[in-house]
């Protein structure tokens, strides 16, 4: 598990760039698809695009995961027509704190942390990021934070589900690779 966090050194920068672009495109597709799904509570989504982020984190490291996430947020918003709108700012705030949470969680990969734990941390980070942006820019009222515990309680299981999907995908990828070689 820990060996997979660093990119292969034989790979050139260009091929890594291409890989990041391809993964980001995949994440954008999931992001756009997910935005078409109705959400029971505004602001609460399964965060399926985060599956890609987790897979990239565990295969290519944190920096690659950061690139894929930022490209997804910008690319997804361009396709959805929300670039530089409040939706985009919320999404970006969530992504940035989610990446910070993944950076912290990434330190625990050495002691055996898998995608499920990382996904839970990322989901909570994402929600907190959105709340911070909402509070700073749109609703500077302390009452907003009364919502936080309930949204966090809902985000935690969603993050775990995302992590399980990512863990299953990573296992599948590993099995495919072992067949090829």
């Amino acid at each position, binding site marked *: 598990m820990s060996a997979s966090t660093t990119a292969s050194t034989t790979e050139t920068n260009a091929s890594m760039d291409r890989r990041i672009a391809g993964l980001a495109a995949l994440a954008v597709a999931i992001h756009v698809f997910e935005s078409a799904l109705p959400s029971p509570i505004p602001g609460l989504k399964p965060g399926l695009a985060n599956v890609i982020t987790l897979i990239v984190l565990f295969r290519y490291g944190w920096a690659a995961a950061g690139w894929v996430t930022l490209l997804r947020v910008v690319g997804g918003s361009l396709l959805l027509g929300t670039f530089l709108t409040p939706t985009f700012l919320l999404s970006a705030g969530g992504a940035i704190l989610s990446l910070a949470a993944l950076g912290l969680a990434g330190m*625990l990969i050495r002691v055996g942390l*898998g995608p499920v734990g990382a996904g839970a941390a990322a989901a909570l980070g994402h929600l907190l990021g959105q709340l911070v942006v909402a509070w700073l820019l749109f609703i500077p009222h302390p009452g907003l934070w*009364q919502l936080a*515990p309930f949204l966090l309680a809902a985000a935690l299981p969603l993050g775990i589900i995302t992590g399980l999907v990512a*863990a299953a995908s990573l296992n599948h990828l590993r099995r495919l690779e072992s067949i090829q070689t």
Partner: protein
Amino acid sequence: MRPPLVTAADLALIAVLAVAVGVALAASLGARESGETARIMVAGESLHELALDRDEAVTVEGPLGESRIEIRDGQARFASAPCPRRLCLQRGWIHSAGDSVSCLPNRVHLEITGNEREYDSIHY
């Protein structure tokens, strides 16, 4: 052969996060319950802070004698007073933050405190 989907470290981190979320939930629910209180002052000195969500009655001693204050169903009132005109009793039940009743003869003051005070009046 195949690695497990969930590791022990995953469970440990999730447990820590769940406890943190649980504490935040408990704190926010607890804070909401104690949102409004009835403050009872005698001769300018705050003697009691009673939560409005618990029914109870207290008796305070003023210059004229004992005033009894009652809390029931989220409201507070003077239940008995030794003052001559009983104006404090006539005021009846009060419940919104900022509402108050003063019994000047016995120097007992009852007021509702809370985060969201209602306005006395609004001018445009």
